């Protein structure tokens, strides 16, 4: 492995040349080696296994494997599966948008407006509800959103007509936003917290309005955080099937539920499950790459 030092003219203390070379070689190995090895063993090998399974049409445990082929991938293009993929994307993109819109002001307020000694506590306080099992949280939302539930009682109290929330799309968005908002806030906070305030001051000194300095200084500076948070929520919502199933009603099949059904349902078609997984992995990878490119341009 050849290494290029990031900063060749860095003045290092006088130590023998070979030692310096060794150190340069060793440092990345020490930093990246252990996690790399771990990921290789428990992630790369398993993922390659999924890839291989996806290339065996109709692969099932307990069946002698057939020849390799791309039958599983062709299967995905059936309209019924495409519809499921489309619905998952809709749920995931919508939830990501809601989380960004609601999470940014919260992270912004905690990072920049709240008294500094309360910040950690406020942040932890926002995450704390996640300490409960996701299943229980979904059950709690059922209690709130059902026709005679808390939300409609509250609306009734203000003289407003009750709505049907549960077992429809609104419930999915409420439940998923609830589940992933804390993650978004955590990540946005990490990048807002290190915001260079002098830039904001400079902007306001130069006569920028709050809005202008927000859009020209704060947002570009926190773009990595926005990208990372958005990505994380997008991926996590794509992988969630408990919330859509419990809150979303009779027509709430999602990609991850479909994959789950292929692995553990009645058909146990591991080949098809693997190929949908691979498509999901590929799709998300491409969107990450695009997002990184986009985030990059903005960060400069």
């Amino acid at each position, binding site marked *: 492995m050849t290494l290029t030092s*990031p*900063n060749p003219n860095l003045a290092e203390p006088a130590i023998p040349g070979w030692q310096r070379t060794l150190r340069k070689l060793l440092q990345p190995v020490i930093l990246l080696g252990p996690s790399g090895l771990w990921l290789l063993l428990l992630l790369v*090998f398993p*993922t*390659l*296994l999924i*890839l*291989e399974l996806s*290339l*065996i049409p109709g*692969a*099932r*445990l*307990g*069946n*002698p*494997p057939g020849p390799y082929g791309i039958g599983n991938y062709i299967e995905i293009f059936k309209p*019924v599966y495409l*519809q*499921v993929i489309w*619905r998952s994307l809709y749920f995931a993109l919508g939830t990501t948008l809601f989380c960004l819109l609601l999470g940014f002001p919260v992270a912004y307020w905690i990072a920049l407006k709240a008294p500094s000694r309360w910040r950690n506590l406020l942040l932890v306080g926002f995450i704390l509800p996640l300490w409960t099992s996701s299943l229980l949280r*979904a*059950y709690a939302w*059922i209690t709130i959103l*059902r*026709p*005679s539930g808390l939300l409609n009682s509250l609306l009734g109290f203000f003289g407003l007509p009750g709505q*049907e929330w*549960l*077992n429809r799309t609104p419930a999915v968005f409420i439940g998923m936003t609830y589940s992933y908002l804390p993650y978004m806030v955590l990540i946005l906070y990490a990048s807002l917290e290190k915001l260079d305030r002098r830039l904001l001051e400079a902007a306001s000194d130069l006569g920028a309005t709050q809005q202008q300095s927000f859009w020209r200084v704060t947002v570009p500076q926190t773009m*990595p955080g926005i990208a*990372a948070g958005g990505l994380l929520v997008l991926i996590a919502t794509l992988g969630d099937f408990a919330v859509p*199933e*419990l809150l*979303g*009603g*009779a*027509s*709430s*099949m999602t990609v991850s539920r*479909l994959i789950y*059904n292929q*692995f*553990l*349902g*009645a*058909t*146990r*078609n591991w080949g098809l499950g693997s190929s949908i997984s691979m498509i999901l992995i*590929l799709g998300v*990878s*491409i969107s*990450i*790459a695009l997002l*990184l*490119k986009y*985030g*990059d341009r903005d*960060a*400069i």
Partner: protein
Amino acid sequence: MPPVRNSNFNSLPPHSRRRFLQVAAAATSGVMLSNCARALLNNASGGTTVQSDGRAGSGNQTLRIYTWANYTDDELLSNFKDRTGIQVIADTYDSNETMLAKVQAGGGKDYSIIYPSDYMVDQMSGQGLLSLLDRSKLDGINQLMDKWQNPAYDKNNAHSIPAVWGTTGLIFNPDVIQAEVKGWDYIWDNTEDLTRQITMISDVREVLGATLQYLGYSINSTDPAQIKEAYEKLLEIKPAIASFVTNGWEDQLAGGDLMISMAYSQDAISLIAEKPELQYIVPESGSSLWTDTMVIPKTAPNSEAAYAWLNFMLEPENAARLVERLKISTPNAAAFDKLPPKLQQNENLFPSKAVLAKCEGIVPVKEEISNLYDQFWTRLTSS
């Protein structure tokens, strides 16, 4: 600013970013790296061999079982230990399929007793995962109720001992619904009044099976035309279906937001114990009859202790106490005789012979048919 020091996921040199996309490409070329998947599929296809009992010496005093959460309790385990001196460690699973995948992939080698459901016994024994039970080591197997002497899922109980059984039916509040519900026709007759007010179990075979029975076919139909007909029949009541959930409907039903829920009898019984006004029925057209059993996998490290466990569970006294504590239906006739009359007469726990006669166990179907069921299910839950 030195460019690389400042880099991270978001500001890589462009060529490395592009390399990210090559992950998949690189992985593709690595396919031939291992033939792991093929080995796995082959391995699980009945090729499992009996492990030599290497741990016999140290393993005699512990028995590992793999079971549903609510089928054992501390009292049972400590009674068993008092009697036999064997310490039981119980791992739990939440679905048959999780258990099967784990066992097939080789993660179940520690277990000497597993609790698969009926159709799963059929599947597992078909794949050669279960050991034949040695009748000479078992006491009291002839005390089972008639229906379980020779069950369809396992001829003559060759591999399995039934432990718990139940039905699938409808639960509702008669005061709210104000009509006599006897079966599925109520839902088809009143679809418009029930908009989003019923739930069905989140299981393809149960839901399509119930519809097949309603249409007068077998719950295990393998005729594509019949399955399609059932799917189309189900579409008629789709507006009435709030969701497909196995659990999570309890509160809404008790609160009147749901009219009818399709449920396993066990769930219904524990609910009715706290909400006596609710009523559970087995539909007139019949229902599925499910049995959870105890089996000894071929890889069992401690089969002596496993037999001790089976015999302990077959003892009428122990089985009867378990029914009282856990409110489960036992297939053990001798245990049934030892129950207090109140439990014996509980129609939900022990339905009458006439009701049972209409019930059918779900058995696995061929791969193509199973795929067909699954495709209709995906369509049903995504249309």
